[in-house]
């Protein structure tokens, strides 16, 4: 079987998580809104998962609003806040996921959007944030960790600055939750996005964790589920799986991090021997499982295809923008030259990867670079 090194795109469901989902899927019937016994059991299942998810991110269960995933949670936050009469201007970082950037771009006249720059390490500095907040800005959003580079932001400091300037603060923790310590309370944020399928839970579930004072409007209408903030019959099996995955992630967090860091160090050690390779944001604090690098003079798509042929699954960056030929907006914001950005490869490790996987990747990469360089030299010689 091929080696899967694309865990930031999606993780396989943990075997224990599947075991938690099966009885909900197979043996339990009922709509959680129904008053009969079947319905009440479904309701209890949701509430248990709400506690598990809240516990992982150190929030109160009442603050967890389940959605169909991270994308919906981010859309709910951006559009649901912009719909409030109090919010006429927001500031978001330039390196956010598309599910933040695109709804923000769609806001139109009702709400102005300012984009917060990052430095060459991919970080929002306290100074840039101060500059980006205008007198009428009321909401700031900076992600906890980037999906491409893995760069971790200093959310607590940024939230404090935003708060001092009378702003609500949201952080998209889809990639951070389950990989590093995440604390809704400790960071002092007012809203946080999390996703199930990035932490060995099933796709189809996510959450927006909110401070109850947030002037948030619903996006989906047609039922009073989730405190009226998210209509629609709850996806109970996926929510149960999300809960189980959150509990496991909390328990295994440090083991997973140590293991991933071990693999990441081995990979970066190997990459350091390849002169044409540049690791992005190498000096910044990054997620333990993520390495994004460029190979000077190579086309990223070609590299990916060669690697796939050799049984290694990686990506150039976000799966949600995969298939596009534009250089990554994240790398662009960091000032990485377009050509180098187009050669980028993202490796994201998971708990089941081994050091042999790293070796296989390094060897394959070495071979591809060698072969293509040689044929390029030969081409040059014949011309």
């Amino acid at each position, binding site marked *: 079987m091929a080696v899967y090194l694309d865990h930031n795109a999606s993780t396989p469901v943990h075997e224990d998580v599947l075991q938690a989902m099966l009885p909900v899927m197979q043996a339990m019937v009922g709509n959680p809104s129904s008053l009969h016994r079947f319905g009440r059991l479904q309701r209890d299942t949701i509430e248990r998962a709400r506690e598990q998810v809240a516990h992982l991110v150190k929030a109160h269960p009442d603050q967890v609003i389940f959605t169909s995933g991270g994308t919906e949670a981010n859309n709910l936050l951006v559009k649901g806040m912009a719909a409030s009469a109090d919010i006429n201007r927001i500031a978001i970082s330039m390196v956010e996921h598309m599910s933040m950037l695109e709804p923000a771009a769609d806001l139109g006249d009702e709400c102005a959007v300012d984009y917060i720059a990052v430095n060459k390490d991919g970080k929002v500095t306290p100074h840039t944030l101060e500059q980006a907040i205008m007198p009428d800005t009321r909401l700031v959003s900076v992600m906890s960790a980037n999906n491409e580079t893995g760069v971790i932001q200093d959310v607590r400091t940024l939230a404090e600055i935003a708060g001092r300037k009378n702003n609500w603060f949201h952080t998209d923790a889809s990639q951070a939750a389950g990989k590093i310590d995440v604390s809704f309370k400790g960071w002092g944020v007012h809203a946080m996005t999390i996703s199930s399928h990035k932490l060995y839970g099933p796709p*189809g579930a996510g959450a927006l964790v909110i401070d109850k004072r947030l002037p948030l409007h619903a996006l*989906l209408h047609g039922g009073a589920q989730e405190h009226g903030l998210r209509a629609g*019959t709850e996806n109970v099996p996926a929510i149960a799986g999300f809960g189980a995955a959150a509990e496991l992630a909390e328990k295994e967090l440090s083991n997973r991090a140590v293991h991933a860091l071990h693999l990441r160090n081995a990979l970066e050690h190997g990459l350091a021997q390849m002169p044409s390779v540049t690791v992005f944001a190498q000096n910044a604090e990054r997620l333990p499982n993520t390495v994004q690098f460029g190979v000077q003079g190579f086309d990223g798509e070609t590299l990916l295809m060669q690697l796939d042929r050799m049984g290694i699954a990686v990506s150039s960056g976000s799966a949600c923008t995969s298939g596009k030929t534009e250089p990554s907006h994240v790398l662009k914001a960091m000032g990485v030259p377009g050509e180098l950005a187009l050669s980028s490869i993202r490796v994201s490790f998971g708990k089941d990867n081994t050091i042999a996987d790293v070796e296989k990747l390094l060897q394959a990469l070495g071979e591809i670079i060698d072969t293509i360089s040689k044929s390029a030299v030969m081409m040059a010689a014949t011309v």
Partner: protein
Amino acid sequence: MSDKHPIYLDYSATTPVDERVAEKMCSYLTRGGVFGNPASRSHEFGWEAEAAVEEARKNIANLVGANPKEIVFTSGATESDNLAIKGVAHFYKKKGKHIVTCKTEHKAVLDTCRQLEREGYEVTYLDPEPTGLVDLGKLEDALRDDTILVSIMHVNNEIGVIQDIAAIGEICRNKKILYHVDAAQSPGKAPINLEELKVDLMSFSAHKVYGPKGIGALYVQRKPRVRLEAQMHGGGHERGMRSGTLATHQIVGMGEAFRIARQEMEVENRRIHALRDRLWNGLKDMEEVYVNGDLDQRIPGNINISFNFVEGESLLMALKDLAISSGSACTSASLEPSYVLRALGRNDELAHSSIRFSIGRYTTEKDIDFTIEHVRGAVEKLRELSPLWDMYKDGIDLDSIEWAAH
């Protein structure tokens, strides 16, 4: 399901996942299965997941006579309704801001329309006939030059009546007005052929057809092409109409559920129809019981009955061994009488005394016989305690009484 109590007769609220569906879903989750992100373009994990998604899309399209390219996946029928109605309203707002719907629609349609009213749109809420069906003449009268959308459901979730969506579609198409149908309750129960229907948008749900919760679809017609403003942004999945990582296992589950429905619906519906007849035949000789909605223009699995002089909530409590409801699950926490039955012209008392029985794949004759016996017993007992019932039996016309104010 038989011999286990309570007996589940709430298939309109949600269905259990068919074992064949659940089994298939399980192979799209863990490391041993196809777990990739279908949006991943750079490796076989992503391609395999994408192939599974496309296979499911075909199965769904096949059941309803659509082209797979016309199927957009969502998180469920509620999202499909929101996307269809807001998507059309926002895209065509320069053409007009008037929408026509019916008072008996699901909350996902009605609440979405209310939201659009807050945004400056105008909505006409048609009254249905006492049968629950929309009068085509009245619908036609409600259409205006600035009407951009008609949203009338296929099968009602509370009373199970089937609207004439073919005729409604003709009317709308003649006037160049888009037509959306909430068909959450119909796949596998009432035949749908979108190739022939003049329907532009149709909402589907998986968990009403023995598929999983958390997944649905919106049919968006390609010829003539219907345009929508996306409601969820970020990645441009589903041809830009609905962003967000596709939940492969859920989509696979929905596809399998629709495939099974197509294969088995004819035989299954005959069996379920017979069970419903058995239930109604066992109850209809009771005094003062009424079927709500047209009995013939109705899906086989639903019957909604009012037991006059019995309070619905008390009846539900007395029937603890039956998992039934007084109406929609989505409004079941409220003690208000059903707005659907009120719209049919039922008075508060009758609306308050109604029970929806919905029969499905795992219901047995034994379940039905048990239900008949229990309902008869409970109704009799509650009526014995009811002063209103005594008065009725004494021949007093209750409508003529002027009640003292408290």
